[in-house]
């Protein structure tokens, strides 16, 4: 502790250089936390998916709907204990940048099939009984300041026009992984408002099965039933569906890991260069300290400590800023990452990375300083 003052004094020697180094480390760790949070958000959505729920969609693409008439036949498949359905609405609130997920859902079965959506009984009743009612997640309510009874106008993109919904419920997630940034409204309301030719089509069916062990057999049976129909189906577990949805944008995890590593590596080289420069400039001072009796080991720790201190400071700033920014801004990337929160584990990982960066960037200058020969160092610069 008594040497901390010495470390801090040396770091403040060139305030601009120290600031720029800390700033670049902070930026690198901010980006690392952001990229890492993309991955953890994906993982959270996978965790939130239920093992006893299957997703049935058009075999060709999510873009093509399935007939509502499939509902009765799906309900009769052995192993299926519940069914719900809905359409991705794809609208925005006031401005195209205010995007979040909206689903037109079969309300009578919604809360039964999705127990992770927790709604007070009175609000559930109010939602069921009003055609233009909607329910919203707690995070969404906080973000836009919506309250029960508010009218929410949503501009449709897939289903053009302005759609007005009355907030009759604000749901919470059963676990922290459950998305609270979604708006659910009546599928019937949507269906009745469409032109005749577009009515009675469903984007996705959700099937509840008695046991996760039945997933493969039920999926196989469902797809076999509609194999030769004009709208063949693809049935899979909710988790597989989510994973497939994510993989549509490529091997995200690998891509983000590569980008994150490249950023951190580049900044580490900058830090090494800075520390080498800082140590080289102080050759005479290091020689003086050694003359006073500072051992090679202590010099090594002092110079290495500077690099570590610098990196941890930058790391704490970058990680802390990422956590703060994404908590305060309720960032969801247009509803694509409904749970975009920097987790404590990510912050810890970032700080660990900063410590490793500090250690690696401090090794070379610290060893160089520790090996310095006093007499020749004093002679060179005297």
């Amino acid at each position, binding site marked *: 502790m*008594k040497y901390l003052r010495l470390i801090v*004094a040396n770091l*403040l020697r060139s305030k601009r250089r120290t600031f720029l180094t800390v700033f670049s480390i902070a930026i690198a760790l901010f980006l690392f936390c952001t990229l890492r949070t993309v991955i953890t958000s994906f993982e959270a959505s996978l965790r939130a998916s239920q093992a006893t729920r299957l997703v049935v969609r058009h075999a060709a693409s999510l873009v093509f709907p399935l007939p509502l008439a499939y509902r009765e036949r799906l309900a009769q498949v052995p192993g299926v204990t519940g069914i719900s359905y809905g359409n991705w609405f794809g609208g925005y609130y006031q401005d195209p940048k205010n995007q979040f997920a909206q689903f037109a859902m079969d309300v009578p079965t919604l809360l039964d099939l999705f127990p992770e959506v927790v709604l007070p009984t009175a609000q559930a009743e109010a939602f069921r009984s009003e055609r233009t009612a909607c329910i919203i997640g707690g995070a969404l309510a906080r973000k836009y300041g919506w309250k029960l009874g508010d009218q929410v106008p949503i501009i449709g993109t897939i289903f053009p026009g302005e759609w007005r919904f009355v907030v009759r419920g604000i749901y919470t997630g059963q676990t922290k992984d459950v998305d609270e940034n979604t708006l659910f409204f009546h599928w019937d309301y949507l269906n009745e408002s469409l032109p005749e030719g577009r009515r009675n089509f469903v984007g996705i069916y959700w099937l509840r099965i008695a046991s996760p062990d039945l997933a493969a057999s039920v999926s196989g049976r469902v797809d076999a039933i509609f194999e030769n129909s004009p709208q063949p189906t693809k049935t899979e577990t909710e988790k597989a569906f989510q994973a497939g949805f994510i993989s549509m944008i490529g091997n995200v995890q690998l891509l983000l890991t590569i980008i994150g590593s490249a950023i951190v590596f580049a900044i580490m080289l900058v830090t090494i260069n800075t520390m080498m420069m800082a140590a080289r400039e102080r050759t005479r001072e290091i020689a003086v300290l050694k003359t006073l*009796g*500072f051992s*090679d080991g202590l010099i090594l720790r002092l110079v290495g400590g500077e690099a570590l201190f610098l990196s941890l400071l930058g790391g704490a700033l970058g990680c802390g800023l990422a956590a703060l920014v994404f908590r305060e801004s309720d960032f969801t990337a247009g509803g694509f990452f409904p749970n975009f929160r920097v987790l404590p584990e990510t912050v810890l990982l970032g700080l660990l990375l900063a410590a490793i960066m500090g250690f690696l960037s401090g090794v070379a200058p610290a060893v160089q300083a520790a090996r310095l020969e006093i007499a020749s160092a004093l002679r060179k610069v005297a």
Partner: protein
Amino acid sequence: MASENGTLIHLRDVHKVYYRDRIEVPVLQGINLDVHEGEFLALMGPSGSGKSTLLNLIAGIDAPTKGEVRVAGESLGTLKPSRLAAWRARHIGFIFQLYNLIPVLTAYQNVELPLLLTRLSSRERKKRVLFALGLVGLEGRAKHFPRQLSGGEEQRVAIARAIVADPTLLVADEPTGDLDAKNAAEILTLLKRLNEELKKTVLMVTHDPHAAERAHLIYHLDKGVLQS
């Protein structure tokens, strides 16, 4: 710390050779020297005669090519680097020509540096630092940075740093070489006081015959050979 006959510094057949572009440059040739505890010795000689090299060998910051250097009871050639550093911290107070204060530390913090290596509490360290600064007449300049001090004041801070840990031996390499006559006289008076009042053994390298006059003994080095 001295031997039974009071010898603090004992050098026998000390040689030092430097290599410049593989060319052998002998700096010290067969130096024999004994300095007793409490003495004030001046080492004179022209530039390149090996004065500073000899001082560095005695202070344990350089090693001889050949010969024995025994100071304060230790044969320095046998000490490992970490023990040699601890030995320097305990026995040597070094005063440089260019003061060599750490620019980012205040006078107080500069003087405190050698005490950081001890087990003293911060309270005890403070007491000693203020005592040392008082001894050199700079108690009022404790919070000043080196850039806020004159050359003479900087050298006095450096002397306070050299004596704060109560070392056995003070070594001064041209301590007045960068000062005007008035400041140089003050520094020499200070060294003389430290020798007489605190009984510190002082070994001073100097070009200046007036400075050397303050010492009990004057040795001359010429082309690496010592002449009394």
